[in-house]
């Protein structure tokens, strides 16, 4: 720590989960100095930004360019509506600032490409938020890298979040209007199920697919080349009304001849006692590996326990800290972070190809 600069971070919009800017604030190499957003954003955005700024005793500036000009920033943390992630990140990159952005990278692949170009052109570091430093994911990586299961041949991630997302499918009455996506996401902020906040509706594959596909990228070091996917709106009325998936399965053809799959869903709170069943399965030339992502955990049960409380509590989860450590190292040593802009763009390309595959009912090439 001694001799290393504490990096000054501006938060560009903090309208959904605030785990990202909190992780920045919690790491000793970083300090939050300002929250900023565009003045033309709706009131609910300004309210959330102001609330976060107040909690951290930093100013809230309704002018991104002014905040960048006046606060001597080294980096920004972007946690806006999904469709604004790339735009805000590009504006920061053009000012020479490093960027940490929340997932999904964007709602459009062309925006991801624009960001990749900006990152390279301005020679800055970009980290897409991910879960690759969870203890079990690290364990999977170490086991595969050690060669104990031989050459990797297949990798599968089952990724089910047992969360609700508003009223269940089939509950809308005949004359009721369809659920407005953004209104539902704004309302969902209180229980943290607003991962898809933004104007444009997004399915679970698009919102959360980065996490399991991030694992696959980490474990294989390869891109996905071709996908075949099926998706459906199986659980939640908001997903039905907005024609986006809450359950998906994707067959993957990955580099080096590796095959695999991703099964993902927001399967409802009743479907698992904890946050969900999340597993990595890997087959190698000499054996196999079955990893539960939630380990290690501690089970806690007690009288009058609220139904909404997870009975099993994850422990020793240093993902957020390690991501920030990784990003500081990346800046200090001019190396690439664990999931950079190009990786994020390639994962987004896999997601968009999967959605296209589902639409046409055929396998789709992923262009890199």
């Amino acid at each position, binding site marked *: 720590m001694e001799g290393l600069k504490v990096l000054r971070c501006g938060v560009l919009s903090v309208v959904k989960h605030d785990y990202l800017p909190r992780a920045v604030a919690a790491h000793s190499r970083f300090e939050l100095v300002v929250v900023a957003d565009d003045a033309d954003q709706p009131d609910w955005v300004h309210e959330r930004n102001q609330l976060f700024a107040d909690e951290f005793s930093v100013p809230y500036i309704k002018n991104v360019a002014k905040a960048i000009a006046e606060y001597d920033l080294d980096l920004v943390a972007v946690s806006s509506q999904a469709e604004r992630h790339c735009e805000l990140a590009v504006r920061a990159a053009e000012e020479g600032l490093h960027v940490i952005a929340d997932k999904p990278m964007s709602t459009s692949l062309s925006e991801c490409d624009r960001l990749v170009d900006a990152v390279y052109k301005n020679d800055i570091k970009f980290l897409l938020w991910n879960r690759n430093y969870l203890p079990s994911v690290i364990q999977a990586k170490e086991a595969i890298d050690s060669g104990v299961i031989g050459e990797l041949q297949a990798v599968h991630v089952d990724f089910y979040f047992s969360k609700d997302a508003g009223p269940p499918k089939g509950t809308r009455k005949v004359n009721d209007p369809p659920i407005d996506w953004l209104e539902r996401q704004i309302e969902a902020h209180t229980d943290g199920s607003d991962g898809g906040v933004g104007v444009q509706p997004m399915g679970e594959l698009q919102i959360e697919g980065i996490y399991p596909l991030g694992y696959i990228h980490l474990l294989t070091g390869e891109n996905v080349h071709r996908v075949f996917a099926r998706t459906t709106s199986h659980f939640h009325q908001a997903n039905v009304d907005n024609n986006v998936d809450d359950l998906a399965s994707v067959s993957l053809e990955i580099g080096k*001849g590796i095959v695999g799959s991703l099964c993902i869903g927001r399967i409802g709170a009743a479907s698992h006692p904890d946050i969900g069943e999340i597993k990595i399965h890997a087959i190698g030339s000499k054996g*196999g590996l079955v990893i539960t992502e939630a380990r290690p955990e501690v089970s806690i049960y007690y009288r009058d326990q609220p139904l909404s409380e997870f009975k099993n509590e994850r422990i020793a989860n240093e993902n957020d800290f390690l991501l920030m450590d990784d990003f500081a190292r990346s800046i200090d040593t001019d190396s690439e972070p664990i999931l950079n802009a190009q990786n994020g763009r390639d994962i987004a390309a896999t997601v968009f190809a999967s959605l296209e595959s589902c639409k046409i009912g055929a396998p789709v090439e992923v262009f890199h």
Partner: protein
Amino acid sequence: MIRLALIGSSEKAKIYAGLSTRLHRATWTVFAPLDSGDLSKAFGSLAKVTTIDDLFSQKLDDFDAVVVDADADVAERIAKEAMNLSKPALVGMLGQGAETIGAGNVLLMPAHPWRFIPSIQAVRRSVDTGKLGAPGLLRIHRWLPLSKIKSTIIERILPDIDLACWFFNEVPDSVWSLQSAVNDDYIQFHLGFTNGGMAMIDLAASLPSGGDYYSLTMIGEKGAAYADDHHNMNLLYSGGQPSAIRSNQGHAELVHQLQEFVDVIDGKYEQTVSLADTICAVQVVDQVLESANTREVVKKEQRK
């Protein structure tokens, strides 16, 4: 009391003989081995030992129904004989020749023991009782150790295809398969059902010798069921890294299957597994292999 004849290997006979006391209203009376193993260790005095030829010519009065546990070729041949002789038969494992059997009015129950495994039965009950709501995704991982006597790929993938068709109560409308370029003993397939239902199944037969692994997850509209070996592992410490040892489900699947067969003969129960189920599963197996070979999605309207 239903008198049962068994046709199978001596090794299998030991297992079936051990189930004698667990069967209601049925008993073993004749055993026709498919090999020359040590018969004294199989049924002992429980049943007469004879040949298959004698069973179907001279011993017809000694049994009411026949249980066949053999590979597909033998099973199909014996099933036809049993049908000709009007003997109810529980026959496994049937393969691509199942269509040629033609059971007529005689009870032919194809052996699908995987449906009777306690964990699978529990999942099925949760679907049947509506606890889970409409099935959405069936996810299966089945990993087997390398075997000196290799089963065919059809034998390996048929059980899980049957389970998928059984859980969704229909055949898939699309089939997509991937095989590993470097591992002939690996295949994964992706089945699509009407109303958005889907199944993703990966099957490897290349684990080092030792234990196998099975995991089945059924995600429904209102809930989910997880039948996963990973949850059912205990730990053994004997130096170095501990070993995982799976809690045994015994041979309950054979007991339940046999009892259903007996109960159907007795008229106490309706048959839950039919020859049509086997034929459907075999057709989907063909589509899975066709997709793997052609690298094309096989869709319902394209089927031969």
